[in-house]
C-alpha cells in the first residue's frame, strides 16, 4: 500500500468532493453535488459510508485517548443524573405526603398498584443505595405508600404514542419510547396523541403534566387534553383539581388553569359525569355544555375555549405533515413536489414546491384532503387531470402519491401516465381488480409480475400511499402501497431509458388503445412527488408514517 501522489488533476467528481467534505471545505453547491451523486448511486453511498466510518475510526485510533477520562466522565454523568433523580424523589415524597393528607385516592385505584409495589421498593432501594449508599437516603426511601403513585418503573403498557409533533418530555418523566406505563409524565414541547389500551384516544398539547394510573384512568395536573372515547372505554376518567370527569361515551376536553386550582371541561359530543373523588355525582354534562370546577365544586359553565386548547388527532396529523412538507421540499434529489395547495390567484396551477415545474390543472376540482385544512384535487370526470412536463432522461425515478380511490371505472386506471404511447414513456396504473404496476413503454410485451401476487392491491375508500420506483440499474420497476411491495416487474429490453415527457397526474391523454381508451382516476390525490433516484423501502415507509391520515396504524389494504 504505497500510493504515489502526483499533481495530475482529479477527474473523479466523487474523489474531489469527498476529500473536501472530510476536510470541512465543501461549500453548499458542493454538498448539493455530492448529495446528488450519493443519491443516484447506492453503491457509492455504501462506499462513502465505509470511508466515513474509517475516517472516524482513524481519528480515534491515531489520536491518543484517555480511557480513564471517558470512564470518569461516564461515572460523573451517572452520578449527576442520579442526584437529580434522588432530588426528584425527595420532592415527590414531600408533595405526595401533602397530597395524601389532602385527599386519599379511591380504593380501587390504590389496589391497582399493589401488585407492583414490592418491585418498586426493590428498584428504588437498589438504585438509591447503589448510587449513594447513605443511611439518610435509605431512611427517606422507606415511606413506600407515599411514593407508590409517583415513580415510573417498568409496568404493563397502559397507552401507546400513536402520533406526535416535536414532542419532548422532561427526562425523568418520559415514556419508554412509545410505551406509557402507569406513572408521571411531563410534556415540555410539542404535542402527543396517546391511545390507551382501553380504546380511549387522548391528545395532549404542551406544556402539560399528567399521570397515567391505568388504561382507564389518568390525572391532569397542568395543561389541557382532548379525550375521544370509544365504546370499549366507556367510563374512562380524567382526574383534575379534586374531581373526576367520567366519560359516558363521548369526546371532551379538560384543562387545568395555571394556578392549578381550577379546571374546566367542555363536552364536544356525548355526555360526561363530574364526580367528587369519593364518587359523589356533582353534575352531568351533555353535548355543548361545559363546567368550571374548583376545590371539588362546580362553579358554573366555562367560557368558550381558546382556539388550539383542545387539538384533535387530525390537528396533530396536519401539523406533522406541514413540518414534513417543509423538510421534504429541501431534498435536492426531488424533480418536483406538489403539496396540493391552491393558489388564490390561479386555481388551475398546481404549484411545484421546488419551484420549477408547475402543473396545469385540467378539470379536476379543489376539495378537502387527508385532514381538515389540507387540500386535494378531485378527479371524477373524463377530462380531469394535471399535466406535467418531464422531458429529461433518468436512470432512476420514484413517483409517490397520497391518493384515495372513490371507485374503479376502467380496466386500467391511471395514477401518472406519459401522454400517448411514446417510447421510454412512464405508465403508473392499477387494474380494475386493484393490482398496481409501473411500466415503461418500449419494454416489449415481456412484463411479468415477480413478487407479491397475493397483495390485495389498491384499496377503495381510504387514503393510500402509492409509490412507483423505476431503476434501470437493477433493472426493474416496483410499486409499493403504504410502503409494502405490491408489484415488481423486470425490465428486459436493453438500452432502456426513462423519459416521461409530457405526463398527466390522474389521467392518460390521447390513447390509441381501443381496449382501454379511458383510464381516468376516480378519487382524490393530495400530495405528489417525483425523485430522480430510487427511494429505499425504508424511506417510503417513513413517508407513510409521516403522512398517514389516520393516526392509528394503517390497516392492510383490502
Amino acid at each position, binding site marked *: 500500500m504505497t500510493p504515489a501522489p502526483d499533481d495530475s488533476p482529479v477527474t473523479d467528481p466523487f474523489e474531489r468532493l469527498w476529500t473536501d467534505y472530510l476536510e470541512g471545505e465543501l461549500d453548499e453547491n458542493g454538498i448539493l453535488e455530492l448529495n446528488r451523486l450519493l443519491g443516484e448511486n447506492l453503491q457509492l453511498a455504501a462506499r462513502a459510508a465505509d*470511508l466515513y466510518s474509517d475516517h472516524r475510526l482513524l481519528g480515534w485510533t491515531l489520536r491518543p485517548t484517555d480511557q480513564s477520562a471517558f470512564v470518569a466522565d461516564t461515572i460523573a454523568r451517572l452520578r449527576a443524573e442520579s442526584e437529580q433523580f434522588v432530588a426528584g424523589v425527595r420532592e415527590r415524597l414531600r408533595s405526595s405526603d401533602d397530597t395524601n393528607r389532602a385527599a386519599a385516592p379511591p380504593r380501587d385505584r390504590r389496589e391497582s398498584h399493589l401488585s407492583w409495589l414490592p418491585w418498586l421498593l426493590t428498584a428504588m432501594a437498589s438504585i438509591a443505595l447503589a448510587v449513594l449508599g447513605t443511611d439518610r437516603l435509605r431512611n427517606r426511601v422507606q415511606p413506600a405508600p407515599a411514593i407508590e403513585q409517583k415513580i415510573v418503573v417498568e409496568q404493563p403498557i397502559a397507552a401507546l404514542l400513536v402520533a406526535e409533533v416535536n414532542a419532548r418530555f422532561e427526562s425523568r418523566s418520559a415514556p419508554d419510547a412509545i410505551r406509557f406505563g402507569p406513572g408521571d409524565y411531563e410534556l415540555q414541547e410539542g404535542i402527543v396523541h396517546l391511545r390507551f389500551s382501553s380504546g380511549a384516544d387522548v391528545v395532549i398539547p404542551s406544556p402539560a403534566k399528567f399521570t397515567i394510573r391505568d388504561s382507564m384512568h389518568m390525572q391532569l395536573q397542568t395543561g389541557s387534553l382532548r379525550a375521544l372515547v370509544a365504546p370499549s372505554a366507556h367510563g374512562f376518567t380524567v382526574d383534575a383539581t379534586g374531581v373526576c370527569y367520567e366519560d359516558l361515551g363521548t369526546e371532551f376536553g379538560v384543562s387545568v388553569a395555571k394556578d392549578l386550582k381550577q379546571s374546566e371541561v367542555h363536552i364536544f359530543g356525548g355526555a360526561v359525569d363530574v364526580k367528587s373523588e369519593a364518587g359523589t355525582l356533582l353534575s352531568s354534562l351533555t353535548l355543548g355544555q361545559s363546567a368550571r370546577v374548583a376545590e371539588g365544586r362546580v362553579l358554573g359553565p366555562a367560557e368558550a375555549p381558546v382556539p388550539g386548547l383542545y387539538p384533535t388527532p387530525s390537528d396533530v396529523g396536519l401539523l406533522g405533515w406541514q413540518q414534513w412538507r417543509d423538510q421534504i421540499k429541501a431534498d435536492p434529489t426531488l424533480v418536483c413536489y406538489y403539496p396540493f395547495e391552491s393558489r388564490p390567484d390561479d386555481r388551475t396551477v398546481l404549484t411545484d414546491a421546488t419551484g420549477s415545474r408547475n402543473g396545469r390543472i385540467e378539470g379536476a376540482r379543489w376539495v378537502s384532503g387527508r385532514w381538515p385544512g389540507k387540500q386535494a384535487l378531485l378527479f371524477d370526470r373524463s377530462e380531469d387531470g394535471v399535466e406535467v412536463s418531464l422531458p429529461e432522461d433518468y436512470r432512476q425515478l420514484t413517483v409517490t402519491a397520497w391518493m384515495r380511490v372513490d371507485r374503479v371505472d376502467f380496466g386500467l386506471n391511471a395514477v401518472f401516465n406519459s401522454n400517448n404511447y411514446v417510447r421510454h414513456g412512464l405508465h403508473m396504473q392499477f387494474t380494475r381488480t386493484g393490482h398496481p404496476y409501473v411500466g415503461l413503454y418500449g419494454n416489449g410485451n415481456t412484463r411479468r409480475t415477480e413478487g407479491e401476487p397475493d397483495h390485495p392491491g389498491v384499496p377503495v375508500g381510504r387514503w393510500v400511499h402509492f409509490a412507483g420506483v423505476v431503476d434501470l440499474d437493477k433493472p426493474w420497476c416496483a410499486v409499493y402501497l403504504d410502503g409494502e411491495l405490491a408489484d415488481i416487474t423486470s425490465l428486459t429490453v436493453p438500452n432502456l431509458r426513462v423519459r416521461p415527457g409530457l405526463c398527466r397526474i390522474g389521467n392518460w391523454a390521447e390513447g390509441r388503445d381501443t381496449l382501454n381508451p379511458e383510464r381516468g382516476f376516480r378519487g382524490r390525490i393530495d400530495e405528489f412527488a417525483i425523485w430522480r433516484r430510487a427511494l429505499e423501502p425504508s424511506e417510503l415507509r417513513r413517508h407513510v408514517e409521516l403522512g398517514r391520515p389516520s393516526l392509528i396504524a394503517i390497516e392492510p389494504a383490502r
Partner: protein
Amino acid sequence: MPPTDSLAELVRRLQAGDADAFEGIVRLFETEIRGWLISRCPPGGDPDSVAQNAFVEAFRRISEFSPGTDFRAWLFTITRYQLLAECTRLKRHADYRSRYALHSLSAELERRAATDEPDRLLHLQECLSRLAQPVRIVLEWRYRDELSLQEIADRSNRSLAATKKWLFVLREKLRECVDRKLSAEGI
C-alpha cells in the same frame, strides 16, 4: 476494582447494589462500544455522548439483565437503541433541513446502526499497522496531529492537490484492505 473480577462477578456485584462494579464494566467495554459507535454515528452526532448514554441506561436497567445470559449482547442492544435515538434526534432537529447534510450517507449509516454489520475497527488497525512509515506518517499528521492539508503539503514537499489526492488514495486503500479482511471472514 480488582483486575481479576470477571464480567459475571461485576454484573453480580452491580445487581447487588455495588456501584463500584459499574466502573469495571465501563472499562471492560469502553473501547468496543466507542469504536462501534464512532464508525456508525451519522455526521453531527456525538458518539461518545451516545456511549455514555448507553452505559448509564445499562446501569438503570441492570435489574432487567438475566444472569447467565450474554451481557455483551444485552449491552450492545441498549447501545444500538441509543444510537437509533440519536439518529432520530439528528433528523428531527437539524440534519434533514441542513444545507450541509449528506442525506444518503446518514441514511446508510442509520441503516447500519439497526443491523449487525461487521465491525471495521480491528481490521482497520491491522491494515494501518502494515503501512510503511513514510505513508503512515501522513495519516498521523492528518489524524493525530490534526494538521491542515496545506501544512501536510508543506511538510511533505507536495502540492495541495497532490496531498488531497494522496489522502484520498490512502483512505481508499485502507477501505479496500478492510473489505478484503471482512470478505475473508466470510461476512
